[in-house]
């Protein structure tokens, strides 16, 4: 083998590799080129999740737990990795992992297997039929390849009696669905898989995962065409948010998109695209001009077809929980939005949520700003800081010294900026944000310093440090430079990260809002569950009560938790909130507590009224927002709550009847 030397000189124990693999959270950042490194060559060539870094980590975990036995495909998977190191750069930026070490261990493990340890795989009629549709290479029932899909569409306790097929167009998907129906085999599409990876460890697992059948992996649908004149882009189901934004930016246009790794079509269908831009750009059906959908009969249709029933409306009510989209979106034509020449960013720090909320809602109702959000100190720290520990220290400083618990974060034109500056006692500008990104390690190191203690005695520490005479000292003291921040990475990656942080976009807050490469840092070596929803925003006190309730329930279940963000939508009539529970997804006890908090907070929100919870808007992103959000949900009665519990019991099973 060509890599024997590397393996012998840089051995890694199976245990160490397993520790890394277990921390994999399927953020999917290894499947698109966000740092200019190029893509994982084997993933690009072979397509299936198994050949990407995230898949290798999952396979390794499955092999070590004995849940899958080696097949001859494992040799191809292990040796398709050239140990080029791209994954280490990408993954380290996002989640601080070194997947290449797992790839090395997988090679070594595979090379040491005896012939008798490989199980045979029989090509059955289903896989033969699928191969006739998509070609030999793109359909499989190999258990090792299947095992790479565990946690993102397959429940970890499932038998691996699945097929994976990778079609390249709607016609092939139509044929696959018709074939599956004829043979009575269930099927389900898979895109980025990250949403499912967050749901899988929780109580929602059995409800959202495929129990058996055909996984239709949509990665090969890579169409991407921007029509600058009409401000639209046509994107295939395999295109990520990052890839679309990159093309849109070439035309000085911006798409309203979710996190960088989210597949655009799937995200439209699942959550309707939640972003800081949604008060201006819209939500759900506002985002697209047309979609191509293959329905569950295998019929290809477009929302623009004249002879179909209204595709923009949906059932409403607390029992209307939908766990799948109305079809597989194979292509969508999405809206793009012109970027103003004078676009700028301004952040306003707040100690209390009440004040931050009041400001963001005023701005939203007056239509000030293109991007609006209240970010908690937790999100701010996680996004800005390159490591988990630095984020923790940064957050500590925000809370204990700066009294910076929330920021109102606004992107808009110069007039918008002026309005915000007039409303605020102090603001943080673009240049200071660049300083904070590059200087985050140094700032975090001041955690126990005298400087911070003195600063905290100021009446308004944020004003003193960001807008007062101390700003110059801070800028000088942080020594904010690409070289400085690169020092916190492993020695062999420092040169690379110096170059990364030298790129203007990596410290450009507006670019970072558009391309959203930082949120995956919330999944640094552990998962989080986002309890999210939309609340009628007329009564701001009710929003505060909601946050208080979410906090108390999480305390009850002993979870690390914090409000993530609140963002206005529909001209400030509604507010979208995300409250996050952080936990080790390998700890069964923690996953139960997350599930308990999820159910209890959902029930409480239904009783409170004016709130549409995630279970009630998931997979409704194709519909017109007015049909999803209105009428405003009323608080449900005890009788209805009993019915809802019964419904959950039916979906989730008896063991979740607390």
């Amino acid at each position, binding site marked *: 083998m060509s890599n024997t030397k590397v393996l012998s000189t840089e051995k890694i124990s199976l245990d160490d590799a397993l520790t890394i693999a277990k921390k994999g959270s399927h953020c999917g950042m290894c499947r698109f080129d966000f740092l200019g490194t190029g893509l994982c060559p084997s993933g690009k060539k072979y397509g299936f999740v198994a050949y990407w870094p995230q898949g290798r980590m999952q396979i390794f975990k499955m092999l070590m737990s004995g849940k899958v036995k080696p097949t001859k495909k494992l040799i191809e998977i292990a040796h398709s990795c050239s140990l080029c190191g791209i994954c280490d750069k990408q993954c380290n930026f996002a989640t601080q992992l070194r997947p290449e070490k797992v790839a090395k261990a997988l090679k070594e493990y595979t090379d040491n297997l005896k012939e008798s340890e490989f199980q045979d795989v029989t090509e059955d009629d289903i896989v033969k039929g699928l191969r006739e549709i998509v070609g030999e290479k793109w359909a499989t029932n190999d258990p090792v390849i299947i095992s790479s899909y565990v946690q993102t569409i397959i429940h970890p306790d499932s038998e691996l009696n699945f097929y994976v097929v990778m079609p390249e167009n709607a016609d092939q998907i139509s044929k696959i669905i018709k074939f599956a*129906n*004829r*043979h*009575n*085999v*269930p099927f389900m599409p898979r895109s980025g898989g990250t949403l499912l990876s967050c749901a899988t460890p929780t109580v929602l697992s*059995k*409800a959202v995962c495929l*129990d*058996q059948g055909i996984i239709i992996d949509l990665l090969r649908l890579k169409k991407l065409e921007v029509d600058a004149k009409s401000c639209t882009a046509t994107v295939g189901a395999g295109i990520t948010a990052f890839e679309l934004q990159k093309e849109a930016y070439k035309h000085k246009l911006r798409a309203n998109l979710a996190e960088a790794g989210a597949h655009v079509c799937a995200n439209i269908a699942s959550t309707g695209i939640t972003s800081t831009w949604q008060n201006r750009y819209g939500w759900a059906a506002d985002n697209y001009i047309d979609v191509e959908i293959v329905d*569950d009969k295998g019929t290809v249709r477009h929302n623009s077809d004249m002879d179909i029933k209204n595709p923009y409306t949906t*059932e409403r*009510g607390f*029992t*209307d*929980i*939908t*766990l*799948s989209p*109305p079809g597989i979106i194979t292509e969508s034509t999405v809206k793009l939005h012109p970027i103003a020449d004078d676009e700028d960013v301004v952040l306003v720090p707040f100690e209390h949520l009440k004040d931050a909320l009041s400001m963001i809602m005023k701005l939203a109702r007056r239509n000030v700003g293109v991007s609006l959000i209240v970010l908690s100190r937790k999100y701010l720290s996680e996004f800005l800081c390159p490591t988990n520990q630095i984020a923790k220290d940064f957050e500590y400083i925000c809370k204990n010294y700066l009294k910076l618990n929330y920021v109102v974060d606004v992107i808009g034109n110069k007039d918008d900026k002026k309005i915000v500056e007039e409303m605020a006692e102090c603001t943080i500008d673009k240049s200071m944000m660049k300083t904070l990104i590059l200087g985050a390690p140094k700032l975090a190191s001041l955690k126990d310093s005298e400087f911070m203690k003195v600063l905290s005695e100021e009446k308004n520490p944020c004003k003193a440090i960001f807008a007062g005479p101390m700003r110059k000292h801070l800028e000088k003291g942080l020594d904010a430079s690409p070289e400085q921040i690169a020092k916190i990475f492993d020695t062999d990656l420092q040169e690379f990260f110096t170059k990364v942080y030298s790129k203007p976009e990596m410290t450009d807050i507006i670019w970072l809002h558009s391309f959203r490469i930082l949120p995956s840092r919330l999944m640094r070596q552990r998962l989080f569950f986002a309890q999210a929803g939309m609340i009628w925003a007329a009564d701001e006190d009710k929003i505060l009560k909601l946050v208080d309730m979410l906090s108390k329930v999480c305390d009850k279940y002993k979870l690390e938790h914090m409000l993530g963000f609140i963002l206005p939508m529909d001209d400030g009539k509604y507010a979208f909130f995300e409250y996050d529970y952080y936990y080790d997804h390998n700890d069964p006890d923690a996953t139960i507590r997350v599930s308990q908090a999820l159910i209890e907070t959902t029930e409480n929100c239904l009783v409170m009224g004016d709130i549409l919870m995630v279970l009630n808007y998931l997979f409704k992103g194709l519909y017109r927002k007015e049909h999803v959000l209105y009428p405003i949900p009323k608080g449900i009665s005890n009788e209805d709550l009993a*019915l809802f519990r*019964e*419904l959950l019991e*039916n*979906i989730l099973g008896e063991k979740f009847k607390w």
Partner: protein
Amino acid sequence: MVKFLSGEWNELSKEYILKKLDPEKDLKNVTTSLLAVIEHVPPSDSIMNFYLDLKDGKLIDFIVNTGDTFKGKEPVFTVTGNYGTYKSILKGEMSMAVALLRGRLKLKGSKLKALQIIKPLDGVILSLKEATDEFEE
């Protein structure tokens, strides 16, 4: 044990529901009717259905037929799915509620009302399950 959707299955299920299910305790005195349409029935890829009529928890009608409608009957609910889905439900691999929420079963009628009667219907499903362990492959 008999084959799903066969005449024997129809008779056995009917007998089981009448004898083993208590109208009040198991079927909550429910009054409803349901047409279950089963698509892609092997080996001929045909469509079959069964019609179930309950009044105050008592079984009034239970008939197996072909096609996707039942002439002369106007069910409160029509639930359509493929043979594989019904097989999973009768084998206890998936609940009816999950099949509905996942879109594996399509419902004609009020979803809210359907979910309200899903508990009593579970009793019926249990009966059908008891009477069936043979399926077309």
